[in-house]
């Protein structure tokens, strides 16, 4: 995401392995620094959130999509535009709840976990938890409070990686402060 990368052409063409390995080094360091997997998950989520908050501006500037009218449109934009732009893949949107406020992103492959095997004793670690934080942070900036979590993970022996998104509420615009 550096400015240099932007000048050199399409940042999507930055070596994907560099990204994957850098992320791996980050997770490995967090595992060393924190006592348990829960805390590592929390840190990854927090870092992701901070990235998402900035990434949304980059996304809006590039994709030039307007405001989404409903959660289904949001799901489509996330899967077909955002994942494509930043990770080069298109997850499948499925498992809609009947009320339309919950859906899953199904990833057959996860670019973050390309070279990863979870060692025994880390069954609680959500290796790619940064993604959840990034989605949450980005959506919060467009006035959507959303809960994001992993429900299936290929690293843990599931057939597919599934990220569940649940719409909680719409955040209201700030009203200007009144005269004192």
């Amino acid at each position, binding site marked *: 995401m550096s400015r240099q990368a932007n000048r050199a052409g399409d940042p999507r063409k930055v070596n994907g392995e560099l990204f994957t390995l850098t992320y791996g080094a980050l997770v490995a360091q967090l595992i060393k620094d924190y006592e348990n997997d829960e805390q590592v998950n929390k840190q990854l989520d927090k870092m992701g959130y901070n990235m998402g908050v900035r990434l*949304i*501006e*980059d996304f809006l*500037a*590039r994709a030039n999509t307007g405001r989404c009218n409903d959660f289904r449109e949001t799901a489509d934009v996330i899967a077909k535009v955002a994942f494509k732009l930043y990770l080069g893949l298109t997850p499948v949107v499925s498992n809609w709840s009947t009320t339309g406020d919950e859906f899953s992103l199904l990833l057959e492959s996860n670019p973050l976990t390309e070279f990863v095997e979870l060692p025994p004793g880390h069954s609680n670690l959500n290796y790619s938890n940064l993604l959840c934080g990034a989605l949450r942070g980005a959506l919060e900036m*467009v006035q959507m409070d959303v809960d994001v979590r992993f429900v299936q993970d290929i690293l843990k022996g599931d057939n597919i990686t599934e990220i569940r998104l649940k719409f909680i509420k719409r955040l209201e615009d*700030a009203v*200007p*402060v009144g005269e004192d």
Partner: protein
Amino acid sequence: MTIYNFYLFDRNGTCLYYTDWNRKKQMTMSKEEEFKLMYGMIFSIKSFVSRLSPTDMKDGFLNYSTSKYKLHFFETPSGLKFIMNTDLSVGSMKDVLHQMFSSIYVEYVVKNPLCALDQPITSELFKNKLDEFVRGLPQFAVKPGS
């Protein structure tokens, strides 16, 4: 044609950046008061426009003109508000304001981890790039003698 001044507000109503080029009438109140007044007006106009519109709106509020100047408005889905005052002969500035967002704000503020996103912008790089960009616009040209 000429461009008078520029305001950038965040989603909470903080004025992130203000600058002027050919503002002839000086403000009669403190900057902080003026920012509050401007944000309040924009907020109200937005709500007016969306309530009174007889059809479904796509873009919402874009600009207004008085007998002396024209105010241009552009808002991102993330709630950033770009406001620019020009003279009356200037056409739509929507694309220009979008460009200020995508090639200046995103590049020099969002991608600068040292710039807090909810504080007034202090980056010199941003200031310079913005100034350079606006001065280079065809709408900026000041007619001699005007």
